[in-house]
């Protein structure tokens, strides 16, 4: 009743003749209407907020240097009156806001997720924790043994210090360079305060070493060890990360790259050098890292968007090159949920490879779109001296004010000197190669492109005990949903959603089974067409980067539009409302997981397991 009164007052303030008085509060949609009218009250009685909004969202493409700034990080988040007090104990507090907007829906003031807030061992003295160092390169050969330890590290990011996790005390984890066809032993030890495991993302290795607790192994408890045998079948760019509460562990720094080199020296075109860029974000506020959920993940609605963008764990990537240099960029998105739209302003970009192979043909591109877990290999040419900014440029959405606004973050600066590069690869760069080896390999499967669909999945969500005010408001808030959520458009509602009150679903259309109930069975050597529909009408339509373990696949078409230039992949992002057809090459026996790689969606149920029997 009190909330309804707020809505009525809101309408009076606005001088309107609302329908609110005749609304019955028990009707969810009426609650939504009242909530939204209540929002107008917040806007009406908060001139500072209302006045701040238009210029903030109307600013034309503001360039924000990506750095930790207490001022920037805390703008619009002075919510001490609504949060539990800060202390040595971890406490929930209101989430940071990306733009000025009303702090919380009427009726949800002071609400917190129904789980215990978690940060890595807050009782530890940061001075006693080893300071993380930048990653080292580990060149390994067939038969080598590598030690890998997950542990606490002290991270200096900008002017601030955080207790985080790291592999071997490094950020990111060691870059493992290994020749194609090699097999190595990894002696892994868990020295963090959570059970964990290591998943070798995209690597078609033996099933028992895939690193998925509950499917291929038990979790590695704190203080315990596990021995992995990792076989590198395919050349390309891969990464390793935990597959147990990765919403926490990966977000706090447990990730690293692997580059598997092909035996052919000219597998890629010539380049003067290379950079490995792991793209990430971190959610921080004035008190430090924003807490995670201990018993269950939070931010399950949209995933946990960070407000501090990172490249290789740093706010700003810097590189100095010579004029005319062609640089090979190995890009990996390790963020929990953020999809990046990268551009290197002024540089020419050539797309060479994706997750598990090169493309059939190289193409020039203006920007690169990476969803979580995806990788791309891009050659960049810097023809003229000067500064080149690596930017993430998106059109974000302000749901409260019903408008788009541009958001551009500078992730890195490449300084190009006037000195010319010693070996000029410009001619090779400007030549678009066709990769006959990839084309020939895919040729073996082209006859299967027209096969009927073997399996069909639907992607959707189911609401549990999510606060009814959120459910009601979402009904109106998502009248329009974009194909891709590039930023957290609803941080307050997102923060209150947990893996207990919201379930993300992969549904087998043929059987109606969902998530872990699904039991697809294949035989090694099968080729299967799988249709994946990301349903337009669900509680919250959102893109899903679907990762299939242990195998590789081709994206045949998107909404009926055939892919004109194929590459083998292990992760494909399916925009909201889209339908993809993929061709799965079933090549690796075992029980494998397929799931959404938004870490919080995975925690909220969005995974299935399929079996591959060995060919007799």
């Amino acid at each position, binding site marked *: 009743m009190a909330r309804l009164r707020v809505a009525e007052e809101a309408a009076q303030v*606005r001088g*309107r*003749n*609302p*329908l609110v008085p005749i609304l019955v509060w028990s009707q*969810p*949609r*009426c609650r*939504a*209407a009242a909530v*939204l*009218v209540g*929002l*107008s009250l917040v*806007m009406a009685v908060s001139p500072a907020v209302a006045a701040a909004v238009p210029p903030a969202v109307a600013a034309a493409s503001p360039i924000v240097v990506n750095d930790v700034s207490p001022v920037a990080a805390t703008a619009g988040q002075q919510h001490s009156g609504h949060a539990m007090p800060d202390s040595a104990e971890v406490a929930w507090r209101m989430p940071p806001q990306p733009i000025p907007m009303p702090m919380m829906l009427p009726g949800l003031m002071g609400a917190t997720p129904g789980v215990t807030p978690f940060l890595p061992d807050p009782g530890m003295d940061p001075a006693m924790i080893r300071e993380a160092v930048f990653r080292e390169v580990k060149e390994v050969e067939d038969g080598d043994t590598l030690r890998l330890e997950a542990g606490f590290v002290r991270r200096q990011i900008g002017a601030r210090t955080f207790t985080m996790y790291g592999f071997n005390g490094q950020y990111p984890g060691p870059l493992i360079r290994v020749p194609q066809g090699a097999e190595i032993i990894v002696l892994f030890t868990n020295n963090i305060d959570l059970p964990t495991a290591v998943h070798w993302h995209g690597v078609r290795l033996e099933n028992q070493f895939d690193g998925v607790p509950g499917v291929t192994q038990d979790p590695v408890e704190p203080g315990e060890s596990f021995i992995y045998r990792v076989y590198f079948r395919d050349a390309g760019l891969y990464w390793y990360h935990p597959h147990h509460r990765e919403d926490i562990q990966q977000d706090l720094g447990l990730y690293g790259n692997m580059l598997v080199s092909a035996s052919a020296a000219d597998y890629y075109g010539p380049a003067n050098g290379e950079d490995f860029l792991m793209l990430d974000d971190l959610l921080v506020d004035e008190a430090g890292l924003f807490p995670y959920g201990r018993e269950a993940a939070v931010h399950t609605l949209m995933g946990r968007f960070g407000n501090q963008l990172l490249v290789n764990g740093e706010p700003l990537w810097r590189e100095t090159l010579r004029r005319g240099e062609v640089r090979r960029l190995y890009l990996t998105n390790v963020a929990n949920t953020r*999809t990046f*739209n990268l*551009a290197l302003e002024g540089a020419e970009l050539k797309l060479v490879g994706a997750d598990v192979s090169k493309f059939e043909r190289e193409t020039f591109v*203006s*920007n*690169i*779109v990476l969803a979580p877990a995806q990788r791309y290999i891009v050659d960049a040419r810097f023809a003229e001296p000067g500064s080149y900014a690596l930017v993430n*440029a998106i*059109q974000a959405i302000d749901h409260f*004010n*019903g*408008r*788009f606004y*541009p*958001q551009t973050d500078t992730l890195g600066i490449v300084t190009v000197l006037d000195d010319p590069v010693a070996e000029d690869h410009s001619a090779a760069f400007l030549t678009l190669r066709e990769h006959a080896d990839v084309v020939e390999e895919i040729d073996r499967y082209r006859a299967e492109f027209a096969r009927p669909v073997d399996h069909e999945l639907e992607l959707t969500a189911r609401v549990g005990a999510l606060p009814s005010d959120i*459910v*009601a408001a*979402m*009904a*109106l808030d998502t*009248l*329009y949903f974009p*194909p*891709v959520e*590039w930023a957290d458009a609803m941080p307050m509602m997102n923060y209150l959603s947990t893996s207990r009150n919201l379930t993300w679903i992969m549904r087998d259309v043929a059987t109606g089974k969902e998530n872990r109930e699904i039991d697809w069975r294949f035989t090694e050597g099968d080729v299967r067409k799988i*249709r994946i*529909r990301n349903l*337009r*009408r669900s*509680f919250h339509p959102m893109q899903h980067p679907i990762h299939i373990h242990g195998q590789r696949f081709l*994206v045949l*078409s*998107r*909404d*009926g*539009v055939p*892919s*004109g*230039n194929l590459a083998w992949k292990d992760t*494909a*992002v399916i*925009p909201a*409302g*889209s*339908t993809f057809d993929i061709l799965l090459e079933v090549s690796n026996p075992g029980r494998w997981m397929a799931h959404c790689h938004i870490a919080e969606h995975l925690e909220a149920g969005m995974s299935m397991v399929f079996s591959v029997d060995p060919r007799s």
Partner: protein
Amino acid sequence: MLIVFERKKQRELAGFGRRVLGAAAALVVATLLAGEDAGGPRVAMGAEPRAAAQLAAHPLRGSGGEDAPLSGACLGDPEVVRLGPTQSAPGARGSMVLTQPGSPFEITVDRDGFQTFHVEIRVEQLPRRRGAKYLVWVAKPELDEYKRIGALPGENRIAGRVAWNQFIVFVSEETSEDVERWQGPIVLTGISPSGRLHTMAGHGPFEDVSCQQYY
């Protein structure tokens, strides 16, 4: 520089674009408020089933080049927008189907982050006035930018590409196809699905004046 008449027309059309955006939101809000919710919140798009029926009645033929869906291909659940007639052509009907154009990535946006759409516009029952040419346009709601999709051929469908956050689509009746900017009356209008992105407080059911009259 625009002449005064054009400015006036531009203002009128810009106002119309904003009203169309408001009307779309109002329509959906009204539908939401009126309906009963048995299985959780559902966004009921009143116009969409009719447009989908039109789509079903006119199978795609891939008229938009290599970006267009293949004939008979699965479109999944395409975004379909109904085009509404104006008083200049009360019997006209139309729809706009939005899909993602081809791209090496699974998401097609430009370097500034604007989502790019392949749009196919189909119309029916246009008034066949002597010498009339029908041109399809898209414009930002403020009309500060517009783009000619092209002249409707005899088959009354045409395709193009748009990379704006929100846009209106409209068909104008002209005496010549050789116009760089619409001059004749507008006969059909519609909005991008993103037109539904709309602050709800203070609109539609919460206003004295219903915007539905514009839709």
